[in-house]
């Protein structure tokens, strides 16, 4: 199988305009073909991204360009991606997380109540602790909020498709801003 050409994203212009490039970068990651690397051009070395991308199964190699910009190539690591069947965006290492410190049964609740309960519970937990939640459906509006708060998560549907299982690991600092 040939490896697709890297997708290139230059965030220097939006950054110069004062725009936040994170969402554009994540949108680019979501649009990658299987196996396709992402080549990112930034005005500085984007250290925070390395962790985020490692959790999504990407290795990073970076080099300084002439003029002071950085070129970082994120390449999907074979076998490092989340298990098959997990929702895209799930953290790769979830199998190694500690046992859940908190468990929530959120079935029978109307959206966005499950999201409220999960985020409120996470705020009261310690960094690194894991929350397990059982839901009726995939919490689509929760995932971006978890990412914004730097929590990691992994989720999938139960075999019968009738419930959704979600693990969330509390991020460090908790994003209290």
């Amino acid at each position, binding site marked *: 199988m040939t490896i697709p050409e890297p997708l290139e994203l230059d965030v220097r212009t939006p950054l110069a305009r004062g725009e936040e490039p994170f969402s554009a970068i994540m949108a680019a*990651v979501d649009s990658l073909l299987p196996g396709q690397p992402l080549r990112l051009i930034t005005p500085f070395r984007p250290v925070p991204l390395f*962790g985020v991308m490692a959790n999504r199964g990407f290795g990073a190699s970076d080099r300084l360009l002439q003029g002071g910009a950085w070129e970082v190539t994120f390449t999907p690591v074979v076998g490092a991606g989340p298990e098959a069947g997990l929702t895209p965006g799930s953290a790769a290492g979830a199998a190694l997380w500690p046992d859940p410190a908190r468990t929530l049964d959120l079935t029978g609740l109307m959206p966005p109540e499950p999201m409220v309960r999960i*985020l409120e519970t996470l*705020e009261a937990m310690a960094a690194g602790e894991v929350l397990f939640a059982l839901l009726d*459906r995939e919490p689509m509006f929760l995932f971006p909020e978890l*990412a914004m708060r*730097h929590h990691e998560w992994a989720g999938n549907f139960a075999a019968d498709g009738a419930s959704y299982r979600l693990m969330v690991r509390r991020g460090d600092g908790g994003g209290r801003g």
Partner: protein
Amino acid sequence: MIGKQLSRWTMAWFAAALAFLLAALGLAVLGGAGPGLWSSGPGLAVLHLFALGWLCQMMLGSLIQFTPVLAARPLALARLALPALLACSLGTLMLAGGFLALDGWEPGFALLAAAPLPLALAFGLALAMVGATLLAVRGWRQDAGRAVLAALLALAALWVSGAGMALALSGSDTGMVLLPEGMPLHVLLGVGGWLTLSAIGVSYQLFPMFLLAPDRGSRLRDAGFACALLALALVLAGLAALLLGGGTARLLPLAVLASVAAVALYLAEARRMWQARRRPQPELNMQWSRAALGFLGLSALLGGPALWHGGAWAEAAVFAALVGWLSTLTLAQMVKIASFLTWIQVFSPLIGRRPVPMVHELTDARAAGRWLALWVAAAAGGTAALLAGFAPGFRLAALGLLLAALGLCREVVLIRRLRHLAADRRPALLPPIILPPSPRRPDHDHPRTAGA
């Protein structure tokens, strides 16, 4: 991933659609439409401001918002949403203006001939976004995804039939074969294939969520979809037959029959979802969706007489479908979706950090319920007035619809401004009512160890 579940231009699509709704109803109140007037220039203009400007734009905006949820992945080519909206609004205005040529307004002929171009662009862009997203996740394996994909096919055929007739009316030889036999096919494609099929697809996902009903398919659903596909195939065959110089005499009754069967099976499926609900007292949006489903049944009942007798029966059947079924459903869900999206935008960053209101606190359910009741009553009155050929009754109904629409527009603005919350529970900074919000920053940017 951030914000990928919120389409940036959803509120703009809704606002444009509502503007067309108010324009169409205002012109109807002024006498631009009414019993027996639907093939006049102003009548066709009002009809298309309503069907294309209001319902079609509302549906496209909703699909752009809803498809990523359905597909569990971001919308493909999301940046095309704004150009699609602009092209669709422009095409609708050109088409509505163009119909005035039929009453002797000379510049209208050029507009009529050109209007299909921006509409082709708009529909093409929408197909690229929604269709590509659904195809990429093999959306035809899901009930909702396959209904939306079939609806998109109907949208393309709707454009072909509409563009052909617009060209013929503008004086070109192209499309002449579609007049007048293509008209019922065009109506079936627009009202049934495109708008109803996509509304049904979306309802498979939304109804169980709002009713807390089990979210799974059934044989009833499969049989209903099979009938809908058959109806769509028969209409497409009819369109092809006309374009090749044949007739539709035998295909059209079969298509209507299959459509009526599909509606009956869908209504039985909706009843099954309603009875399986775990929420004893459903919210406003679902209560008024029941009225919409009643109108769907009514328009199916009128379908047979509409086919045999045409005239007032056909006008009433199409009115019951566009105003009673599709618009009531859209307006009832719009109130819910506007408060849900506003809540997500404003309050999701605050959860766990300060008390947040419940979603339903953003809406004044009693006020919204009163406007929806007026809408439904006026829709019933308008259907009856068309059946009876009673023009003053129709104008009164149009006035009722206009007042209800204005009331619901006001309610959406109040929701966007959080006016139903006490002042101390409103954040100081609210997102714009219509335009997209500025992107959020992640809470903190300090480095984390790779592979953690």
